[in-house]
């Protein structure tokens, strides 16, 4: 049996748990010996470095990784590729993106753009004096972080200046940015902080659904859970889609982690057999696994599906 690996950011996010379960099922089907690893926190580069080394030492054919630090991990990935392993990056592209053999990911910029346009459309004329809180991922701004954040801004009609940099914008509608670590607790604290800064916040961008759930608790505690604040997010996990249905989240861009994982396993199996490396989506530097906007209040010109439909496609 060929040894292959999967390295995710943490075990604490259902997105990655689903991704692992999907990969395990696929690996079993393909007769691969899958080794799974994860960091201890979002941003934990060292655990991922050690995981890659251990995979090299295990004689793995290749692995899929969701990098925690999209640039600091690059040298170690290079080491693995030099050792002949196929490296497939999932979800969060590397910086530079071509440091991996292939990248299977949501088009994160587009996913952000979708919720940004939706928010703008929903607010209509009020968008001109919105007060927006940004609940981002991590202080070191990995690719997924700036892609989604800047995508949202583009969709909402904010001048994003450097598209690789969060925080260089000068739009007065931005109340502030805070980091969440992509988890509930962080989401709640960040929301509380930004509410302190300006209690008038009426649009909340969140990096993912766990952060959105945390933000909602803070809004509730502040007596703002009455629908007066628009929360948008990315992920499309089942609890998240339920939240769209319940009106907690206005809209979310759904991604497909099971697909990412399955494609990765298939590519590595193919590579092990024939040495063939996967192709990219034409016109893109990575393979787009798709993103769909889910909302029950559709907006003209922004394609979306309902939460009812979303529930059929959701993961976790």
């Amino acid at each position: 049996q060929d040894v292959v690996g999967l390295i995710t950011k943490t075990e604490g996010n259902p997105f990655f748990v689903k991704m692992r379960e999907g990969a395990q099922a696929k690996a079993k089907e393909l007769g691969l010996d899958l080794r799974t690893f994860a960091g201890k926190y979002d941003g934990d580069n060292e655990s991922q470095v050690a995981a890659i080394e251990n995979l090299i030492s295990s004689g793995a054919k290749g692995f899929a990784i969701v990098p925690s630090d999209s640039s600091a991990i690059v040298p170690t990935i290079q080491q693995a590729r030099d050792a002949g392993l196929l490296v497939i990056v999932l979800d969060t592209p590397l910086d530079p993106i071509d440091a991996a053999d292939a990248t299977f990911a949501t088009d994160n910029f587009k996913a952000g753009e979708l919720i940004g346009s939706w928010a703008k459309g929903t607010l209509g004329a009020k968008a001109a004096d919105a007060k927006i809180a940004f609940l981002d991922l991590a202080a070191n701004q990995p690719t997924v972080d700036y892609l989604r954040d800047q995508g949202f801004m583009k969709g909402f009609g904010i001048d994003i200046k450097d598209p690789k940099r969060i925080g260089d914008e000068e739009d007065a509608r931005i109340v502030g940015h805070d980091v969440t670590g992509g988890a509930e607790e962080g989401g709640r604290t960040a929301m509380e902080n930004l509410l302190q800064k300006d209690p008038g916040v009426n649009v909340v961008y969140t990096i993912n659904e766990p952060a959105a759930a945390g933000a909602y608790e803070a809004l509730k505690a502040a007596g703002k859970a009455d629908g007066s604040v628009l929360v948008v997010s990315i992920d499309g996990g089942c609890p998240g889609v339920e939240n769209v249905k319940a009106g907690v989240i206005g809209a979310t861009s759904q991604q497909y982690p099971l697909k990412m994982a399955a494609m990765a396993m298939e590519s590595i199996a193919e590579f092990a057999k024939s040495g063939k490396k996967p192709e990219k989506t034409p016109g893109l530097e990575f393979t787009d696994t798709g993103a769909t906007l889910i909302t029950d209040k559709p907006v003209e010109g922004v394609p979306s599906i309902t939460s009812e439909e979303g529930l059929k496609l959701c993961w976790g």
Partner: protein
Amino acid sequence: MTTTNEAQPRGPAEFERRLAESDAAVAAFDEEQPSLLQRFRHFLHAHPTVVPFLVLVLGIALFASLVGGRFFHPFNMSLILQQVTIIGVLGIAQTLIILTAGIDLSVGAIMILSSVVMGRLAVYVGLPVEIAFLIGLVVGLACGMLNGLLVTRLKLPPFIVTLGTWSIFGALNLWYSASATIRQQEIAATAPFLQWTGTALQFGAARLTYGSILMIVLAALVWYLLNRTAFGRHVYATGDDPEAARLAGIDTGRTLLAVYAIAGALCAVAGWVLIGRVGAVSPLSGQTANLDSITAVVIGGTSLFGGRGSIVGTLVGALIVGVFRNGLALSGVDVLWQEFAVGVLIIVAVAIDQWLRKVAQ
């Protein structure tokens, strides 16, 4: 009675003969009328727990002057209380452990695991919520017992034991919860009792949650246990000098085991309070709970070397940190510098505490 020879006291040495006449005077005492300052010092000396209180008052005064009316607003005051409730309850558990010269790095993990068990059993397995709640409590108790058994039976250092069980309970939690959050609405629909600790008594703008009341009740209970029962004396003695306590006839093993078990159960209660506060059951909460609870205990004046400290101190310690965090946020300090300031303030708070104690000597 064959050989027993009736002792004939051979009597004291010559030079001891006149001892009977000796003066029974006690030690020399300060007889002068003490000044106000001296009385204050003696007061602090006799009541060391007052010291963190003073630091708390200083902190409140500081932020009241920095932030103004908003800080003193009843809503904000009650908010601070809510924000420290979880750490307060964990701090009570942690105080018990630290009094025995131990440390518990697993309090946060036990809290989460218990809350996940309560939540899943009630919401997904469909057990009656009271049963689910009780099982959650038992899980906490069992986790604490495991810690206690490892500490007492295998004689392992508490730091190592709880470092290990922290990983173990953490893994169990992620496995059992599949890292998925149980949504607030689901709990509200099937097991609202679990959210009870988050509901509140409204006094004007102030909200006093049942969770906060619970914290105060628990603190009172544990205070009683520590200060008014034999068990409490044994806890202090065991932490102070375990060998002396053992020689004095205390079953230090059983005392320790009980302490860890009680602490585990308290962590489970903290898990309940957590559900109330967050509304949902999130398997990722409480990552910083260990350090925060230890911080509260230490700022509250309890010695990490055991045997000295108090529950009241811990609550005040938790409040000190809560006041600082809240006050900084209100005064609009950037998050980055909030962390910085919290660091500085922790040190300053304890420095003032130490200084006041020295003055009190």
